[in-house]
């Protein structure tokens, strides 16, 4: 199927393709097609409609005096919506002609990526339906550049002005969200009529920092993108580097990495389950879930040596090995966690109020999940069988290493998202047990001794984080510092879906509906540092920042 699809696409687009080259995404060798930027929109329409594809990410790269490069990374889906192959469309354009046709006009999946590129790189996307800033403040640097005039036409006016009493601001700081995000609800009585989301309150410029540090130092940077899924971030980055420089880790390291990721998924889902309880006022459930989560964190500490920055992956392997005695203790502890989780599932299933508060709200059906670009448990709760571990295996997720099933549910509502996550905890425990048993039996090194060279090229690392598909794109120009780093986190996609799933429900439902996508603002927020006072736009390097601090 893969070969025939590629052949069809190449034949279909033969008149438009300037050149093709390969890129490695996890274990899969994928094609990148270079075309003229004027034809981008036609190609996108063809791929999205004729080949039932989804847009994974739209990556914009600043090439300095050479202009800009745009990569639209698609994933082809079969009839049931299961992804099976990646294909990238690439195009170049100069700084003088920094205008491109907007893909957001035909698919919502490009919306946030294009808004981000508009505000941070100054590229204009013609025909984009919503040109407002996404991460920068509304008023920055002036009304025209912030897209205020155009934004007024799209119906929902979200700018700080004297408001009518029916606008409810949830955030930037609110007990329901705890992270900086501005969720505005337009309400009629208790019913939500419209919603708008504004991230960007947690500026860290982490992708820019990544372009200032060596590949090795970045390991420690990217595990700090998110405190909940730090092992996944390191793993995705390491996979991107391994794909870029053709490094193959030994089997033992693959099992250790997988173990780290799965333990992190258990901890993350238990954390979410607790928060979901809290969001419907069930503090006891919240406390119990977090108590059980501690056990998973203890295991992660045993594995990685840390409780927060748990990155265990290293280029070509893993940083720590496990002794046999430790493995036995971990298996025991996992059994303990399994029993506790089963009790929690029992409570959740049998608590009528919990079910009443989560059933039939925040509905996201299969077609909407696909069109809006949902990923991870949110997509799987809409009966979309999409999981990077299964569709594009990495580490020890291939059938020759571990066997397991992708959990889906056709409930489409918040309760379905609860079900998917609690079942995934049990699957993760099973995968962990398989990894630990394999580690007991196989020996060998945990890191490859083969040397690698820093080449020019591109690499993509893709993992299934607890919240969904996490992607790291790296571009190397042969120097020991990556030329370009692009991170597309699962929350980047799922947060964009939130305004759509809030409409029509009650104010009381808003926290749990928003919570049901497991929003993480720390891995969504990013910004370029600019001098607002003078209006001067320049990229501030790490050294400049250090000098500034020293002064």
């Amino acid at each position, binding site marked *: 199927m893969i070969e025939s699809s590629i052949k069809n696409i190449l034949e279909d687009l033969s008149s438009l393709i300037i050149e093709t080259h390969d890129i490695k995404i996890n274990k899969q060798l994928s094609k990148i097609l270079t075309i003229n930027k004027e034809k981008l929109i036609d190609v996108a329409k063809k791929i999205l409609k004729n080949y039932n594809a989804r847009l994974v990410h739209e990556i914009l790269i600043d090439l300095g005096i050479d202009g800009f490069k745009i990569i639209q990374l698609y994933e082809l889906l079969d009839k049931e919506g299961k992804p099976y192959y990646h294909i990238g469309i690439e195009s170049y354009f100069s700084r003088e002609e920094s205008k491109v046709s907007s893909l957001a006009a035909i698919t919502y999946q490009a919306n946030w990526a294009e808004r981000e590129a508009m505000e941070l790189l100054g590229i204009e996307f013609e025909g984009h339906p919503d040109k407002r800033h996404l991460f920068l403040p509304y008023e920055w640097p002036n009304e025209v550049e912030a897209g205020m005039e155009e934004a007024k036409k799209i119906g929902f006016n979200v700018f700080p002005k004297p408001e009518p*009493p029916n606008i*409810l601001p949830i955030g930037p700081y*609110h*007990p*329901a969200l705890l992270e900086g995000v501005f969720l505005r609800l337009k309400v009629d009585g*208790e019913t939500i009529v419209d919603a708008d989301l504004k991230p960007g309150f947690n500026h860290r410029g982490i992708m820019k920092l990544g372009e200032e540090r060596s590949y090795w130092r970045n390991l420690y940077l990217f595990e700090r993108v998110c405190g909940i899924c730090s092992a996944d971030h390191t793993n995705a980055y390491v996979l991107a580097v391994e794909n870029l420089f053709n490094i193959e880790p030994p089997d033992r390291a693959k099992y250790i990495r997988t173990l780290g990721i799965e333990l992190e998924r258990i901890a993350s889902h238990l954390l979410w389950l607790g928060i979901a*309880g*809290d*969001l*419907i*006022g*069930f*503090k*006891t*459930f*919240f*406390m*119990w879930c977090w*108590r059980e989560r501690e056990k998973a964190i203890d295991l992660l500490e045993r594995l990685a040596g840390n409780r927060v920055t748990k990155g265990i992956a290293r280029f070509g392997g893993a940083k720590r090995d496990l002794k046999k005695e430790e493995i036995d203790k971990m298996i025991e502890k996992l059994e303990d966690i399994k029993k506790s989780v089963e009790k929690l599932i029992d409570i959740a299933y049998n*608590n009528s*109020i*919990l079910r*009443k*508060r989560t059933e039939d709200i925040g509905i996201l059906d299969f077609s909407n999940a696909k069109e809006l670009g949902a990923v991870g448990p949110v997509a799987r709760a809409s009966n979309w069988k999409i999981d990077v571990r299964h569709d594009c295996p990495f580490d020890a997720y291939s059938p020759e290493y571990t066997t397991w099933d992708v959990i889906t549910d056709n409930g489409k509502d918040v309760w379905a998202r609860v079900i998917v996550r609690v079942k995934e905890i049990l699957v993760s425990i099973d995968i962990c047990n398989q990894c630990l048993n394999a580690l007991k039996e196989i020996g060998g090194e945990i890191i490859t001794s083969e040397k690698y060279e820093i080449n020019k090229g591109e690499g993509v690392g893709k993992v299934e984080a607890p919240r969904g598909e996490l992607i790291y794109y790296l571009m190397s120009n042969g120097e020991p510092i990556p030329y370009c780093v692009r991170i597309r986190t699962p929350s980047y996609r799922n947060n964009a879906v939130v305004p759509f799933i809030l409409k029509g429900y*009650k*104010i*009381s*439902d*808003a*926290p749990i509906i928003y919570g049901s996508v497991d929003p993480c603002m720390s891995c969504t927020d990013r910004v370029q540092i600019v001098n607002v006072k003078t209006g001067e736009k320049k990229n501030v390097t790490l050294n400049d920042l250090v000098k500034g601090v020293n002064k």
Partner: protein
Amino acid sequence: MIIEIIFFIGLIIFNIFLSFIYFSLFRKMNAKLQGRKGLLFIVPKDLRKIIGFTKIMQQFYDVVKLFYKETIIPKNSHRKIFIISPIISLILSIIIIPFLYFPVINTYQQFRFISFDLIIITYAIILIHVFWNIGAYASGSPWAYIGIERSEKLNFFAQISFISSIFSIAILANSLSIKEIVLKQSIPYILLNPFSAIAFILFTLANFHLKPFDMSEVEVEVVSGPFTEYSGKLLGLIELTKTILFYINSIIFINIFLKSGEFFSSSIINLFLLLILTGLFIVFLSIINNIFPSYRIDQALRFYPILVIMFSILSLIISFIYRISFW
């Protein structure tokens, strides 16, 4: 006269102290049920002395802390009403204290000239909430508006529940005086009229925003609901009123349904029994508060009024039947 004034002030201070103890018990029970462990369990022994026994008087520290903090009054609020409402609420809660019945400390002696103290207590409890909501409305916060709306929807039925419960007991005892109600209970009224006790508990859950009826104050939805804009000293006053009112409510339940613990000939033992029974009632409220999530207001309004009306009518009918049959 001076001795009476000193006695009164002492009585009020003692009851406020008790209210803090009981609220701490409520919080402690919540923590136990949720499996939370405080600092005293995890810090080294040497440090425990420095931290002190905060676990007993945490509620007291929390209120005192608020009196040290800055009070912010919103720009678009009605300043006078915003400030005066919590003060009136606190005064009303303190006014009720001398009317409560205690074995040994028979405070009712000072109010012998009033034979309808149950009416005063009922009005005061209802008015406290009215003034809270007036103050909240004056704050101009959209969260407060939503909180008031939800609170009023639920309180309408909660007050029916409270009034019918109180008056069905008054009918049973043929008196509007708490002291007489206590003394006339040969059998605790909770056994004679359990529906009235259920109606009282239904009122308590909604009135104190306990789960599953805490939708008007649930943090993750409406921040602090009616009290969102209150801070510093004014919030301190509200917290103080809440603490006292929670205690008053529990003591009233024991007074009118459990004979105020007067089961023995010794007044001292009876007093201890009263304190223990009040504690047990608070533990019961804490258990209910911890085993449920909160309902949405529309979900609560689907069955809460039905329960309230059903138990209110049943309690009144039973009281009338007893009254006609036995007296």
